[in-house]
């Protein structure tokens, strides 16, 4: 049953979001703190464990991979619902700080990745 795979995915999704909500109220922040990240970790650990016990059938996996394959279309839809006009027209401070922070982050990423490569050698 494909729905079992999707249901496992949904269960991990909520388990992660619950942790995120708890962390949010713990730190007094309105919002979910890293819930999706925890959901991903739960999902990796659970499916890995189930795979080892041969509990995951091809059917389960097909249910999960349907959602994985929807990921790119969802990202494209996400792009189409951004407030692009506000981002472009709202004022120079947003445009400049967003741009400079992003460009400098690229430089920082390049630096950290090169550190990583040295570490590996």
């Amino acid at each position, binding site marked *: 049953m494909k729905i079992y795979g999707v249901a496992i*995915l*949904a269960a*991990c*999704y909520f388990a992660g979001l619950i942790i995120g909500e708890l962390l*949010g109220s713990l730190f007094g*922040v309105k*919002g979910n*703190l*890293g819930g*999706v*990240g925890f*959901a*991903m*970790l739960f*999902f*990796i*650990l659970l*499916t890995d464990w189930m795979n080892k016990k041969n509990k995951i059938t091809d059917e389960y996996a097909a249910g*999960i*991979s349907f959602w*994985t394959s*929807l*990921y*790119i*279309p969802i*990202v*494209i*839809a*996400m*792009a*189409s*619902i*951004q*407030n*692009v*006009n*506000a*981002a*472009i027209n*709202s*004022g120079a*401070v*947003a445009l*400049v*700080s*967003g*741009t400079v*922070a*992003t460009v400098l*982050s*690229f430089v*920082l*990423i*390049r630096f*950290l*990745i*090169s*550190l*990583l490569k040295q*570490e590996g050698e």
Partner: protein
Amino acid sequence: MDAVYQMFLKNGFVLSFLVVGVIMLVTQFISQKILRNKIPGVALAIALGLILASFGGKTGIADIPLFSGMALLGGSMLRDFAIVSTAYGASMVEIKKAGWVGVISLFVGVFFNFIVGVAFAILFGYSNPGDIATLASGTCTFIVGPITGNAVGASSEIITLSIAAGVVKVLIVSVATPLFKRLIGIESKTSAMVFGGVMGTVSGVSAALASINPKLVPYGALTATFYTGIAAILCPSVFYPILKWILMA
């Protein structure tokens, strides 16, 4: 005619599948036949999505009633659900391998982006610590701008500006990363984790990795979601008090 329009209107979510399908068909064709695979089709599709968004307002093309279904397909619920699904088959070994670099890149990334945001807010003449912290939080990632803004009682104009700074980041990350992937060095799963950790924006990072190599998506998305979480804690509760203390001294 009106009956047909009403039918599309009633089935907005289903229509969104058709719309995205057509967007991908057109951009794959342009990518393969006209640009000879120089720019990935997904990157073009995302760029086209952003162009379409400019025809609407606050929620992009979903502001047009006919395309309101795009808001559900592209909204945070399905996005996050699909992101978690990409973790299937991701290797815990790879994640642990990136362990310390991953964690360091998270904190460095949040701090670094906040500082840049603060510098430009001051440069543009803002002097209220709450306004500066809100703008800087938006520079980290657009979800955190309103979180800090509400915590420090910033005006809605400042909050909108902070969101705009974050959206600018999403736009640049989505479109520029695939073009400069060699220069930046995003090849492995570990480098994808560093990328997500420093850049932070879940939308931008996952869009960029989807066009570079879909296999890298879970690794970048994982650190990016933790970035958002850490920024939501640090910006209003740690960075803002420190900033206030420095500016008042």
